[in-house]
């Protein structure tokens, strides 16, 4: 849970910024949104029918009012991250403008300016919405992205796709799927599902409404609001990062009537954040073979994870700690991390994704709290500056921080607006 507080007069990309100014945001604000970044980075939703006739005396009060202030970030925000070292490419999911961005691995350098992507997939045909996890399939030259909230689908593209293109495959998945990981040996992939505290396994080429091959779910699994997931093909294990929110839900959509007594009597729990490691053929209510959990782990909203098989290490984007924590692959219990990359020089801010580049001895971090993806030496530790930075906005550009904002409250005492993600 994140609450974002804005001063009642706060405005980002508004032409009016004072509390007492009542000038509407002019029509050129949209132009400002568009002109400040490449056009393809701006969401341009359809809006054909205002359905309102402003000249009727009996019209409802109000109408087509322009806002007097607005907070909206015209630039992408990086979320998931995936590396294709054989092609020297790095891809990031962008949940703000709803796109997939692919960059040259050595792009960006230390420039303060926006880094031009090699390609961007964006637009209504793409069906990319509020996306989180992303992965390359180098063998089949494909790129996957999973829609997390509302859209309930994985979209698969050729890895050279660009613009407003249809996915070559689309697989519907349970609500709040977040991470995904491929096993090329079994030709399957696994996804994490937040609200069901579940892992589901699919055929690699599954599409449409195809059901999962198996699911891993239940109180003995220790899964609790899972996010990052990694299939360790070499050791036949599955690593899952858990935030710790735990409950049993019943039907929740507008399409179902039933309420189960099991859900009504279960009650919720807050478990400590964890990494749970399973045998990769686990199913049902299977117990993990190892769990990394406890105050010494520094885990705090663990998001994306990656595995370095060569050095036997797990890296975790530790969102709540503004850090990247690295464990031994075989760690268990209240383990102390091998290394923690954290501090003001790192530039790490609310990291969502992490990727280890063994070939080039580097580690990547996608920052949600800044418009950056930063690269460090693989063995970086402590408060170290990045080697290179890819920017999706000019240096210093603030982030709105929104992730599908579906509510707002007004704090009349502080004249602030509260927006939850």
């Amino acid at each position, binding site marked *: 849970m994140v609450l974002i507080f*804005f001063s009642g007069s706060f405005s980002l990309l508004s032409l009016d910024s004072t509390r007492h100014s009542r000038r509407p945001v002019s029509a050129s604000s949209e132009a400002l949104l568009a002109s400040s970044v490449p056009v393809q980075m701006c*969401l341009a*939703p359809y809006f*054909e*029918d*205002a359905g309102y006739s402003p000249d009727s005396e009996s019209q*409802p*009060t*109000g*109408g*087509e*009012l*322009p*806002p*007097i*202030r*607005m907070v*909206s970030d015209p630039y992408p925000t990086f979320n998931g991250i995936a590396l294709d070292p054989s092609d020297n490419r790095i891809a990031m999911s962008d949940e703000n403008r709803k796109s997939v961005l692919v960059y040259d691995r050595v792009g960006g350098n230390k420039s303060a300016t926006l880094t031009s992507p090699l390609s961007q997939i964006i*637009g*209504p045909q793409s*069906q990319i*919405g509020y996306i989180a996890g992303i992965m390359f399939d180098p063998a089949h030259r494909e790129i996957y992205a999973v*829609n997390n909230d*509302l*859209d*309930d*689908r994985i979209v698969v593209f050729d890895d050279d796709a660009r613009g407003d293109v249809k996915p070559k495959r689309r697989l*519907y*998945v*349970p*609500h709040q799927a977040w991470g995904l990981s491929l096993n090329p040996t079994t030709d399957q992939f696994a996804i994490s599902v*937040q609200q069901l505290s579940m892992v589901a396994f699919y055929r690699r080429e599954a599409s*449409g*409404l*195809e059901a999962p091959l198996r699911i891993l779910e239940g109180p003995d699994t220790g899964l609790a609001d899972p996010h990052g997931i990694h299939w360790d093909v070499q050791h036949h294990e599955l690593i899952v990062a858990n935030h710790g929110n735990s*409950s049993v*839900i*019943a*039907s*929740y959509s*507008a*399409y179902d009537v039933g309420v189960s007594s099991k*859900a*009504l009597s279960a*009650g*919720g*729990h*807050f478990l400590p954040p964890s990494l749970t490691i399973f045998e990769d053929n686990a199913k049902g209510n299977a117990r993990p073979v190892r769990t990394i959990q406890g105050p010494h782990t520094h885990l705090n909203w663990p998001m994306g994870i990656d595995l370095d098989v060569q050095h036997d290490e797990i890296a975790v984007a530790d969102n709540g700690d503004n850090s990247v924590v690295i464990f031994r692959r075989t760690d268990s219990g209240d383990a102390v991390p091998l290394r923690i990359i954290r501090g003001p020089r790192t530039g790490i801010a609310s990291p969502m994704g992490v990727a280890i580049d063994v070939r080039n001895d580097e580690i990547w971090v996608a920052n949600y709290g800044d418009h950056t993806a930063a690269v460090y030496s693989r063995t970086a530790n402590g408060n170290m500056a990045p080697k290179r930075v890819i920017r999706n906005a000019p240096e210093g550009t603030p982030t*709105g921080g929104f992730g*599908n*904002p*579906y*509510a*707002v*409250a*007004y*704090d009349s005492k502080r004249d602030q607006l*509260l*927006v*939850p993600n």
Partner: protein
Amino acid sequence: MHGLAYDATHDEVVVPVALGAAVLTFRGGAHGEESPVRTIQGPNTHLVRPHTLAVDEKNGEIIVADTSSRSLLVFSRDADGDAPPVRIIAGPKTGLLFIVGVAVDPVHDRIVAASASSVRGGTTGLFIFNRTDQGDVAPRGIIAGPRTGIVRPWQLAIDPSLGNVFVAAINNENHPPYALEMPREDLAPDTDLPSPWNTGAPGFVGMWSIDDNGDVPPRGIIKGAGSYLVHPAGVAIDPKAGEVFVTDGVRNGLFTFLAPKLFSKESVSPEKAVEKSDRSHR
């Protein structure tokens, strides 16, 4: 997290945690990783998937809308731990199903819930109850139907001084492909569900009187391309400043509108609004 409320009387922020089946209360000035001052959580709470909530500052209560238990759960404001609700509004007579918005009017003693239903015979709209109702009770009023323009409601806000209800009508299409762990059986394997890119009718923020009932158009509205709103989901108000605050999931942004007429008694009467609606439907 799809709801929250600020309690000005006690200077507290109250939030639901859907995936932890909990309601947390924080200090109003809480910042960073600060612990809540109270936590409602546990099997006695009946919380399953608390979606949104409202605070009744006058009567010292928190009203929680739970999308999974299909209920409105009323807790004492200072409830803490595994506390049972003091009242529950739920059952077939209520008409409530997927409850995504709730607001309370302590002046007129009403609770308003925004509920969506796609099951046969179900109703999508605003369900108005007496504040102290409990059990399986019929609402005293339902605002629903084509004239309302509400296809899919979301967050609510109330101006108790005038008894006006503000509704974020998100109005996007949403047909979940899964029923929990497995694909829905009522969908064809080759089904083509709406794209996440702006589906359904354009959304709007509408205002109704708490005494409205039936298929009545809004008395006040903010909508249209000039508003920048596509699918507005969140709404809050500052009646003193005449401002309406709106979040929009497609825009991924927060918008402030200056609309003092929506906070005055000059807003259009329902009779005139119906005339307008009738003309536009001819």
